[in-house]
C-alpha cells in the first residue's frame, strides 16, 4: 500500500515533448512509472519516447485512461494547462513547473477544486511511491521501500530526509513534495490523513518552512486525527524577517510564519520536532523503536 500513486497509476505528461518534459518522463519510465502518453498542442499524432502524443488532455484521457498528469508546461501557460486537465477528468495533477504567476495558480486551483481534481505543487519535486511509481524530478534511487511516509515543502530536504530514513535501515512508503509557493495544492492537511489511513505507513516525516500557516493548521489536525508518530523539521529558524528565502512563500512577515511559532505548535501536539534536518533519520529510528 501507499498513498496517491502506485505501480498501476496511468500517467500522462503535459509539456511532454519539451526538454524538461522529455528528460524527466524518460527518468520516470526507467523507474517503472506507467507513462501512457503526453500532450503537446500541435504535435498530436506523433510518437515520443515510444508513447502517443495528443493535442488536448481530453483526447489523451479518452485514449489512454490516464488519471494523473505530470505538468512541465512553462510558467506562463501552466494555469491554463492545469484547468484543462481538471475539465478532462484527470484526478491528480502534479505540477513541477517553477515560477508560475500566483494569480494563475489561484484560478487554476479553484477550478481544479470545482472539478474534483487534486493538485500537487507547483514548484515541487513531485510524488514518489518507493520502487513503484515516480512522478516528478526526484532522484529515484534514494527512495527505498519501507514504512515511513514523507511530506515536505522543500525538494532537497525531501531527498535529505528520505536518505537519512533509508540509512537508518527504514524506508519510504510515499514521499510527497508539496512545494513552497504561496498557493499550493495538496498540503499537510490532506496528506497526513492519507498516511494515517495507509496500513503500511507507520511513521510520518513532515518537513515545513517559514511563511504562511500550513504547519499550524497541520498541528491542529494532528491533534485531532493522527495517531501515528510524526517527526517534524521546520526550515528557516535563522532566517531574517521580511526576506524571501528562495521559495516565494518562505517569508516571515511580522510575528507570523516564524519557525519558532510552528515548532512550538507541533511540539504541543506531541510531534517530535528536530532542530536540524541532520537529526531526521535518528528521530524516526527513535519513534519506530518505541
Amino acid at each position, binding site marked *: 500500500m501507499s498513498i496517491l500513486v502506485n505501480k498501476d497509476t496511468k500517467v500522462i505528461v503535459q509539456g511532454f515533448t519539451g526538454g524538461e518534459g522529455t528528460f524527466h518522463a524518460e527518468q520516470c519510465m526507467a523507474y517503472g512509472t506507467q507513462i501512457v502518453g503526453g500532450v503537446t498542442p500541435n504535435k498530436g499524432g506523433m510518437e515520443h519516447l515510444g508513447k502517443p502524443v495528443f493535442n488536448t488532455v481530453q483526447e489523451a484521457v479518452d485514449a489512454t485512461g490516464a488519471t494523473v498528469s505530470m505538468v512541465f508546461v512553462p*510558467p506562463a501557460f501552466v494555469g491554463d494547462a492545469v484547468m484543462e486537465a481538471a475539465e478532462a477528468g484527470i484526478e491528480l495533477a502534479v505540477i513541477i513547473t517553477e515560477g508560475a504567476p*500566483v*494569480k494563475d495558480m489561484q484560478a487554476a486551483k479553484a477550478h481544479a477544486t470545482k472539478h474534483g481534481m487534486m493538485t500537487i505543487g507547483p514548484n515541487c519535486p513531485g510524488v514518489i511511491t518507493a520502487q513503484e511509481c515516480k512522478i516528478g524530478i526526484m532522484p529515484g534511487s534514494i527512495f527505498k521501500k519501507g514504512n515511513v511516509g514523507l511530506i515536505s515543502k522543500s525538494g532537497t530536504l525531501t531527498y535529505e530526509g528520505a536518505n537519512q530514513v533509508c540509512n537508518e535501515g527504514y524506508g519510504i512508503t510515499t514521499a510527497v513534495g508539496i512545494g513552497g509557493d504561496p498557493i499550493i495544492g495538496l498540503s499537510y492537511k490532506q496528506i497526513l490523513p492519507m498516511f494515517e489511513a495507509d496500513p503500511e505507513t507507520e511513521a510520518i516525516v513532515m518537513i515545513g518552512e517559514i511563511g504562511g500557516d500550513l504547519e499550524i493548521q497541520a498541528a491542529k489536525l494532528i491533534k485531532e486525527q493522527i495517531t501515528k508518530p510524526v517527526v517534524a*523539521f521546520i*526550515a528557516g529558524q*535563522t*532566517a531574517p524577517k521580511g526576506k524571501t528565502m528562495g521559495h516565494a512563500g518562505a517569508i516571515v512577515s511580522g510575528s507570523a510564519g516564524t519557525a519558532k511559532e510552528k515548532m512550538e505548535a507541533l511540539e504541543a501536539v506531541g510531534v517530535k520536532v528536530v532542530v536540524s534536518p541532520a537529526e531526521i533519520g535518528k528521530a524516526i529510528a527513535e519513534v519506530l523503536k518505541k
Partner: protein
Amino acid sequence: MNVHEYQAKQIFKKYDIPTPKGKLALSVDEAVENAKELGGPIWVVKAQIHAGGRGLGGGVKLAKSLDEVRELADEILGMTLVTHQTGPEGKLVQKLYIEDGADIKDELYLSVVLDRKLEMPLIMASTEGGMDIETVAEKTPEKIITVPVDPAIGFQGFHGRKLAFGLGITDKGEQKNIITFAKKLYQLYMDNDAEMIEINPLVKTGSGEFIALDGKMGFDNSALGRQPEIAAMRDLSEEDPDEVEAAKYGLSYVALDGEIGCMVNGAGLAMGTMDTINHMGGTPANFLDVGGSANAETVAKGFEIILKNPNVKAIFVNIFGGIVRCDRIANGILEATKITDVNVPVIVRLDGTNAPEAAVILQNANIKNIIVGDDLGDGAMKAVKAAKGEI
C-alpha cells in the same frame, strides 16, 4: 518586486484613484521648483526608499514655505534613513517626492493582500490609519475589517457594503466614495499581478472624499514577464547589489551577519543548513541556493560573492545531488579554487547522485583548504570548528 511611493501613485492615477498632487525630485533645486509648480501653501517633502516607517525615521516632513521646502529637501536628500524596516544600516535617500498638503479629516487604513489560507485576495481596512497595521492587529484586532474577494465573481456590491459599514461610514455619499475607491483598488491589484497594495493612511477629507496619502505596492516576480510597465519600474539601487549580481547567475543569495558562508542546492536545504550551523554553535554568513543547474561557473561565482563578505571564516558547501550531479559540483569547486582565491577552509559535503565519484575527484585534487564532510551534521560541525580555528 516593490516600487516607490511616487510610482505607486502613478499607477493609482491610471486607475483614477485620488492622490494628492505631487512630483518627483532628484535634487534640492528640483524640489523647490516642484513646490512652486504645485502652489502650496503647504507641502510634504517625502524620502523615496523601499521601506515603511519613513515618517518616524525623519524622512517625511511638512513645509510651510518654499524656504522650508529647500531646507528640508537639503536635509532629507542624501541622508541615510533608518526605519524599523531598513535594518540598522538604513537606506540612502536618492529621490524625493514633493506633494501638496492634504485636508485631513480622518485617517484610515486600506490594503489588498493575498490571503494564503482562503487562497484569494483580501481587502483589509481599519479606522486606525497612520498606525503600523501589525500593531493594530495585535492590540485591537476587532478594529480590522477583512473582506475576501473571490476572483471568480469579482468585486461585488456586498463586498463594498461590508467594508463601508465595517468602517462605520454612515453618510451615503461617503459610502459611495469608499466603495468606488476599493473597487478600483481591487481591479488594480488583479490587473497588475500585485502581491500587496497598502494605503496608510487613506485620508478622508472635509468634503468626504477619500485620498491615498501614501502608497506601497509589491508585485509577483513570477508575473513580471507579462507586466512590462511594472517591470520597468524596478529600481536596482534599492536592492542589495550582491543579491542582484547573484540573481544574474541563477543564484538566490541573502546576506546575513554570521561567519560561515553557505553554498547549498535548494531553498529548503539552504535554510536547513543555516539552522544546523546555528544549532551547532556557529553563525551563517548568508543564504545561498545554487539552484538546480549548478556548474563550475555558478559555483565559482558563488564563492566570489561569499568571499566578498569580510566576516566569512569558513565556507560550507552542502549539496544533495538529485538532478544536480555531485561530480560536476566537485569539478566546479576545483575550477572555482583556480579562478577565485579561496583563502578560508571549505567544508564540502556531497551526497546523492554520483557522490562517490565526487569524493574521488576531491581526494585526488588534494587541495589543503578543502575538508570533506561525511553528512549534513558532520559537515556543519566541521564548518563550525573551522570558523573557530579549531581545525
